[in-house]
């Protein structure tokens, strides 16, 4: 006997009506949505259960009794325990998790307005370190979960609606800071779940040893259509400019330098005080850049079919000339309950990304800091400004011109799709079949025109057109059995098989001598100069996996996972490997001795252990390959380009995790803390061997040499601690204040390198056993020589073992005003053995602090994130602080070490007659011929990279329902946002947040594309049906 039930749904935190809440009768197709005033009507029988669910609120279930009116108050779900978490081949309630998983919700994402999805994670998920690798639009982000698990970067596995994006999954045309995940529209995302410990990741086996990030997009709910529009407009600016010399300072300096070196003064610099300020190349290159986003979505459904369809247009100009990013994407998620025993569905994501990457590809930011202020951007006659050809050594480019006329345009069409069919054999047993695909079609147009920029000219133009495709397919089938025995023993078992196949191919064509710089199609170049290349690749993975969950009495939980993986990357003998993990959880608050304690809502202890394998190397690493190159001997020849290692085997990571989750005082305070230890053995790395090996490591460039083999090189450990603390500080009718703090501490340590490998050397780093990966390694300095006495204290030492360096102002000598390098080993010479560790680019800890406030209809969110304890190599200072360069200078150079004479009539080359008149300076003397190698890599250029950044402040206003009802709107929110509001740091460069994919080259600032400060206004509106 059905009865008509009505009621009103309100929010527990502000007593406002909640529109759009899904109301379903449990185990039946009946469902509806609440209206704008929060009211609903539904037919149900006595004894039925009504399920009230709404995004970001705790789902409630209520028995239908005799009453026909059921009013419901829904609680917001900050760290909600009934929240559903995606765990890979299944879902679980947060309260039932045994592994370590952090989650970010759609509501969190909306507050930070990320351009790409990985940005949304920064500071919001404990244990996850996120660093922007480039601030260019759509630029890449380096994500590390629980520390560096190897020497070649440790990206996690992304799983987007069941489509796996492998850790090194790249766009078909990678490079230049391009982010392969940038084709995904952040506003389509319902949740991001980060699987951190082995018990959580083991189900993904071979690609999951550095964690898994599962991204689930929004789905429709049964009910009338929900039509929403999100739009914003933003303006971006460079938050900070370097202080560089203006023209007056430059002229003054060049005059002084000319006197010392003995070249003629430039006539136009005769009276610096009458000059203007000249060109500030940063101001020329950087601009206030707009960004724009429109997103329209429609979702809804009925008892059988649910749908979510959205379309997005996003356009962002870069703050630096020569960069922009446009994304157009369409998303469709459709789920259909075809029969009682069959469900089918498909997730589709189609995107077009078009981006200009000229800025990064041409290095113009670095050039803008190098070019001198006497050069005009554009000459009065309309030609490009450039250095005077009559001045020796001044051959810089015109960065403004380069950014304007060089073209590097990338375009890519990406299609993600996952289709499934789920067959329910019995109440307890289902079989799910999934077919997933990720297809990426990319092109790149590159054109380097001919030009004249003063002394810098290019007489031949050239163009390259590249086209490439990636095809990824996977088929997964898995059975799920779930049953509760004797009301106390709950069992869930998953068993399945998966096969993945990746194929790629690409061609590239180059010509030079184009008839005109304006006609850039490849076919208009000189046909006789045509060259081309082509590549094809393939790889495959196959796996059998299983997972069992047991729960006893909702107090003791056990998870056991096993996965058997095969990878084409290994030879037949080493091809298959097994991953396994186990975890226990104890819900202490469900024990009888705590049942009466009302203050404790949740208290759970988790223990986990697992072994996960990794195959993060190039395909066919077990064999050697040859390439075709031309020689003067009848054209073609075959050259060996990679050396195989037939014994290469899987990298293995053992990890231990202990965690505690708690919620007290009706959930007003909740926290989750984890401590972990991860040890990775048999680390995979392409060896860096001495030059006499004739090899170079993978990723390097050394024509004529052979790429070194991959080997299982050693072991590294990461131990750490992370926690999340959420508090509802103030909770009242009109005003609410919630805080959320995340903290991540990780200690990285190399435990072992195979015999014969004393160290792994990077450009300015050295990695040895007992220290963390990629620590800076160079010379220590003790200021500069100021007078003869300093040479007594710090003797001029041999630089190469062939006798002491002469104390002379002439060629090859050392003199006052040169840097004192520390003879660390005290052997009386300065050589490679005097280098030492100068700090680590890895932060000691990273944290995020998020505060949200609600006052009536206003909401305010302030999000801060920071890092502490890392060091940065400010490479721009190497030239900028060097008075002997011929290009741009920082004003610090004005204070170069000035040499005075004790007896003005005495010799200038008598060390006892000279001294530095400005002894406090740390800038060297002016000399074109010092033999002291003052600019070698040393602690002079190392700076602290600690920072606290106010990442975003968002202020919004929700229009009241009374008003909205009159204009037939369901909801309307307007907001203003500022991102990258301010940064507190001692770092002198643009931005201390410098990510890198390569841990051996991390923390190097060489003209980094800074993250812009963005001001945004926007609105979210949803229509009434």
């Amino acid at each position: 006997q059905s009865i008509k039930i009505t009621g009103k749904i309100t929010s527990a935190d502000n007593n406002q009506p909640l529109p759009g809440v899904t109301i379903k009768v449990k185990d039946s197709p009946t469902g509806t949505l609440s209206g704008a005033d929060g009211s609903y009507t539904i037919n149900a029988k006595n004894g039925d259960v009504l399920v009230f669910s709404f995004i970001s609120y705790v789902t409630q279930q209520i028995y239908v009794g005799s009453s026909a009116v059921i009013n419901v108050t829904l609680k917001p779900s900050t760290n909600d325990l009934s929240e559903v978490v995606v765990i890979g081949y299944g879902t679980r309630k947060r309260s039932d998790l045994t592994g370590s998983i952090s989650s970010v919700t759609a509501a969190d994402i909306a507050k930070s307005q990320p351009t790409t999805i990985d940005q949304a994670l920064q500071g919001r998920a404990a244990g996850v370190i996120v660093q922007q690798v480039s601030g260019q639009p759509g630029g890449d982000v380096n994500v590390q979960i629980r520390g560096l698990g190897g020497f070649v970067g440790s990206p996690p596995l992304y799983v987007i609606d069941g489509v796996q994006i492998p850790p090194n999954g790249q766009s078909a045309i990678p490079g230049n800071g391009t982010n392969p995940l940038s084709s995904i529209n952040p506003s389509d995302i319902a949740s991001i779940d980060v699987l951190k410990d082995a018990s959580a990741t083991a189900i993904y086996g071979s690609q999951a040893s550095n964690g898994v990030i599962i991204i689930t997009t929004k789905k429709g709910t049964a009910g009338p259509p929900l039509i929403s529009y999100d739009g914003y407009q933003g303006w971006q600016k460079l938050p900070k400019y370097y202080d560089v010399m203006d023209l007056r300072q430059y002229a003054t300096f060049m005059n002084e330098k000319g006197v010392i070196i003995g070249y003629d003064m430039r006539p136009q610099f005769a009276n610096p005080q009458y000059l203007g300020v000249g060109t500030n190349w940063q101001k020329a290159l950087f601009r206030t850049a707009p960004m724009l986003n429109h997103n329209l979505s429609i979702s809804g459904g009925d008892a059988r079919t649910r749908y979510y369809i959205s379309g997005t247009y996003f356009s962002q100009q870069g703050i630096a000339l020569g960069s922009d990013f446009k994304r157009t994407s369409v998303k469709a998620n459709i789920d259909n309950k075809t029969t009682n025993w069959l469900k089918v569905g498909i997730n589709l994501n189609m995107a077009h990304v078009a981006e200009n990457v000229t800025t990064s590809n041409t290095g113009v930011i670095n050039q803008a800091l190098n070019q001198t202020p006497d050069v005009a951007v554009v000459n009065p006659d309309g030609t490009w400004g450039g250095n005077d050809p009559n001045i020796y050594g001044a051959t810089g480019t015109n960065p403004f011109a380069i950014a304007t006329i060089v073209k590097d345009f990338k375009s890519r069409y990406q299609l993600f799709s996952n289709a499934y069919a789920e067959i329910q054999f019995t109440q307890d047993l289902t079989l799910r079949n999934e077919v997933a695909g990720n297809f990426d079609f990319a092109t790149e147009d590159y054109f380097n025109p001919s030009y004249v920029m003063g002394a810098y000219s290019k007489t031949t133009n050239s163009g390259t057109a590249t086209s490439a495709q990636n095809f990824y397919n996977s088929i997964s089938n898995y059975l799920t059995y779930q049953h509760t025995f004797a009301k106390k023993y709950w069992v869930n078992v998953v068993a399945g098989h998966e096969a993945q196949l990746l194929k790629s191919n690409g061609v590239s064509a180059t010509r030079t001598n184009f008839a005109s710089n304006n006609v850039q199609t490849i076919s208009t170049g000189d046909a006789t100069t045509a060259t081309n290349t082509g590549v094809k690749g393939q790889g495959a993975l196959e796996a059998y996996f299983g997972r069992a969950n047991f729960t006893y009495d909702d107090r003791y939980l056990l998870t056991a996972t096993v996965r058997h993986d095969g990878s084409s990357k290994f030879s037949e003998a080493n091809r298959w490997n097994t991953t396994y993990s186990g975890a226990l959880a104890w819900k202490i608050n469900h024990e009888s001795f705590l049942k009466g304690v009302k203050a404790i809502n949740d208290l759970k202890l988790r223990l986990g252990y697992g072994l996960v394998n990794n195959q993060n190397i190039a395909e066919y690493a077990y064999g050697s390959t040859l390439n075709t190159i031309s020689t003067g001997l009848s054209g073609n020849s075959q050259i060996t380009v990679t050396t195989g290692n037939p014994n290469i085997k899987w990298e293995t990571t053992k990890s231990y995790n202990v965690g505690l989750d708690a919620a007290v005082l009706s959930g007003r305070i909740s926290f989750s803390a984890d401590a972990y230890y991860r040890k990775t053995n048999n680390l995979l790395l392409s060896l860096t061997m001495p030059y006499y090996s004739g090899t170079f490591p993978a990723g390097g460039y050394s024509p004529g040499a052979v790429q070194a083999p991959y080997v299982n090189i050693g072991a590294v450990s990461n131990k750490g601690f992370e926690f999340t603390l959420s508090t509802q500080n103030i909770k009242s009718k009109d005003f609410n204040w919630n805080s959320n703090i995340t903290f991540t501490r990780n200690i990285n340590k190399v435990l072992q390198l195979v015999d014969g490998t004393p160290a792994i050397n990077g450009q300015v780093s050295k990695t040895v056993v007992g220290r963390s990966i990629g620590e800076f390694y160079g010379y220590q300095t003790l200021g500069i020589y100021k007078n003869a006495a300093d040479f007594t204290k710090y003797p001029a030492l041999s630089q190469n073992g062939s006798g002491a360096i002469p104390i002379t102002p002439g060629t090859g000598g050392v003199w006052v005003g040169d840097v004192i390098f520390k003879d660390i080993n005290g052997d009386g010479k300065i050589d490679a053995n005097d280098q030492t560790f100068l700090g680590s680019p890895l932060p000691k800890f990273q944290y995020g602090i998020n505060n949200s406030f609600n006052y009536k209809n206003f909401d305010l969110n302030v999000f801060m994130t920071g890092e502490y304890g890392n060091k940065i190599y400010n490479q721009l200072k190497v030239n900028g602080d060097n008075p002997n360069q011929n290009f741009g200078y920082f004003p610090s150079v004005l204070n170069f070490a000035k040499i005075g004479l004790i007896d003005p009539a005495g010799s200038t080359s008598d060390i006892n007659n000279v001294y530095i008149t400005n002894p406090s300076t740390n800038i060297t003397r002016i000399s074109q011929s010092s033999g002291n190698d003052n600019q070698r890599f040393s602690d002079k250029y190392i700076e602290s990279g600690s920072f606290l950044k106010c990442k975003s402040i968002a202020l919004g206003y929700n229009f009241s329902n009374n008003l909205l009802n009159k204009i037939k709107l369901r909801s309307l929110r307007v907001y203003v946002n500022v991102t990258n509001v301010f940064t507190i740091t001692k770092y002198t460069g643009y931005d201390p947040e410098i990510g890198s994919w390569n841990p051996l080259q991390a923390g190097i600032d060489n003209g980094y594309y800074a993250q812009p400060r963005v001001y945004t206004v926007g609105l979210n509106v949803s229509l009434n049906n």
Partner: protein
Amino acid sequence: CKKDYLNRPPLTGITTDNFYKSGSDLRLATATLYAQPWAGWNNFPLLGIGDIMSGNMLQPYNADLVQFTSFSITPQNSYLAQSWTSFYDVVAHCNINIKAINTKMPDSVAVKSKTGALGEIKFIRATSYFYLAQLWGAVPIIEDNDKLIANPLVPRHKLTDVYKFIINDLRYAVANLPKTDQPGRVTTWSAQGMLAKVYLTRAGLGQNGSRNQSDLDSAAYYAGSVCNTSGLTLLPSYYNLFRTQFNDNPESLFAFQWAPGVGYGQGNAIQTQFAPSSSLVTGGGGWGGAIGPTIDLANQYTTQDSVRRKATFMLTGDKYPELNAAGGGYTATGVNVKKHVVGTAADNNSPTMDLWSSIEHNAVLRLADVYLIYAEALLGNNASTTNAIALQYFNAVRTRAGVDKVTMLTPDVIMNERRIELAFEGQYWFDLVRLSYYNPQKAISIIRVQITPTNSQNNSMPRTQFSYDPATGIKTPAANSLIFTPPSINTFTLPIPANDQTADPKLLEAPVPYY
């Protein structure tokens, strides 16, 4: 899935497993060894060490090249690392190919194909080790690069053993290379000429004042074999030796086989670095405006010796109609390098030739060199000789250059002839090293004279550049403020590159026997 689902060999490249199946595969594999791996040596160091360090040439600005001029070479010097790497890259490719031929070739391939290929490879490996031995002395001998995977740190081997290794390789090449092959490929004559040079060099090793007669005899034997029985002759025009139209002429016994359009770091970039003007190089380059011969070298040329002079370096006002012909030819505006400057893509009728890929097949060993080796070997430990055969071949070189014959040979006459004939071909430094083996004082004194001021007023010395007035023909030396490290016997051994010193501390220990 089926078992072979996970078998995914590369689709682009050929693999070691499916290559090395036929004689023609071997020809493709050996062709590589004539070009790309040598690029690092060829680019700057070939002239930087061969001619700049020996005082034939000077580059006043490039700090690493200045180190070669002033003998203040640090282990960080980039050309040091570049040369060392390049030679060992060549060795690695040779070793990889030798191993593949010995382990992967099916029996169906003719033995002659295999031994011929092994001959080519061993010739090239020996040439590379010969460079290493002359420049660094005792160096690690690496025969199987795969062994480095498990055990990457190796010791240096005794120099006598390195020479033994080189001679073994070359004797194999002499026996197994054909008398003729496609132009550009090495033949038994190439191997015999190189072997003669190695014997001549080793003859002085560990000797004091005189040289080992048995090695001198071997040098004379093999050089004589090339001179008397190969049937090869000198190219009639010295000037044409250095034009690409005459690439791989019969005088060329081993020349790098550079191809056009191969990209940065993979081709012949000498012209780019040393040509004095961008009008001479297609696609940019021509950065050698500051580079030129020393006055010491220029003074060795008699007035009569104008052909070799003009083919080696330009004097202000010299006209080269064939260079930048489309632009009306090139007229020298300073004193600069000419050898290796072959002009634009159009001049060479090679559209894809660009700044990184000159098609000049510059010779490592040519017949004139072997003639002079023959004469030197026949002179042997004598103070002078009038041996008719020695004079015949020696004078053949002079006659071709258009200079008068000599009637008597002395060590100095031969040394000076080699310096002029082979100037800017990266040879003179090795002649000085050869001398330093048995007469270090003389080798040191040759250098010392170069750096001793001749005119205290303007501090000029033989090792300095000069300007030239075409109207008067007067050469004016440039002032030189360089500070020289006084030469000693150590000057003739280069420091091991810093990278490898750090990576392998064993290199700093005393060398160990190989055999």
